[in-house]
């Protein structure tokens, strides 16, 4: 393992993390809901229409953040190296997987670990392990 010191950005990472935590805290304290992005988005696909408004608002806020960021600081760096076929396969896996696993990086990783939930710890270790393994296989064994 070699640390990429040029890419390493601990302070902005920490600051961004605090903002993410603050957003999760807001949703929990003000609305009594978990800021799990896959759960919030997936709930929009359920037949019952009762709680659609806050879900749409949260998703709109996420997408709107990029627009505000671009106005304030210039275009954010969002580098997508994967090709379209890979993106479709990846998106589908993420969609199915997060719903069966009842959460993603935000719901299990941030909210669940903050609550010291063993269930979320197992989920987080599972998706991290699979992420590390997939990156290793694609980049070093197949050499994409």
């Amino acid at each position, binding site marked *: *393992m070699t640390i*990429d010191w040029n*890419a*390493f950005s*601990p302070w*902005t*990472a*920490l600051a*961004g*993390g605090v*903002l*993410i*935590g603050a957003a*999760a*805290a*807001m949703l*929990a*304290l*003000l*609305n*009594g809901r978990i800021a799990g*992005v*896959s759960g919030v988005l997936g709930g929009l*696909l359920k037949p019952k229409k009762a709680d659609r408004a806050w879900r749409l608002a*949260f*998703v*709109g*806020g*996420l*997408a*709107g*953040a990029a627009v505000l960021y671009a106005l304030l600081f210039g275009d*954010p*760096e969002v*580098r*997508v*190296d994967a090709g379209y076929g890979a993106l479709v396969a*990846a998106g*589908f*896996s*993420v969609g*199915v*997987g997060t*719903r069966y*696993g009842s959460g*993603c*990086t935000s*719901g299990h990783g941030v909210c669940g*670990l*903050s*609550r010291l939930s063993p*269930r979320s710890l*197992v*989920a987080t270790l*599972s*998706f991290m392990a*699979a992420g*590390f393994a997939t*990156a290793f296989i694609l980049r*070093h064994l197949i050499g994409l």
Partner: protein
Amino acid sequence: MTVFAALVAGFVFGLGLLVSGLANPGKVLGFLDLAGMWDPSLVFVMVGAIVVGMVAFPVAHQRTVSFLGSDMKLHTARHIDRRLVAGSLLFGVGWGIAGFCPGPALVALGTGQLKAVVFCLAMIAGMGVFELLEHRRAARAAATA
């Protein structure tokens, strides 16, 4: 009011993802690729978020209604089963392919990149397939009960 709070929360969440670099799949893959040039920044994102969360969630758990008066729906599921692990593994594979998880993908939609749109559509399709299968499973369970 809760809708406005959700909008602001989504907004702050999205800014956090952008500031931290988690919204950039290139940086995320730099973290997931342990064997290459490793970028440990994302560990700091998790630490920052969890420290704040560890202050807020104990307060939230003691309440019966939220500060805006809505019911508290903070998940209390504790069971660890095959669905949880298999689903999370599948999610991790997708994450490792593209470097996008759900939050950053929705944030990237706001940049207007076609690749983000394609990823999000595939992700929503995957979630739709899950709903369909769950619906069928529930129907089967009701038929045999």
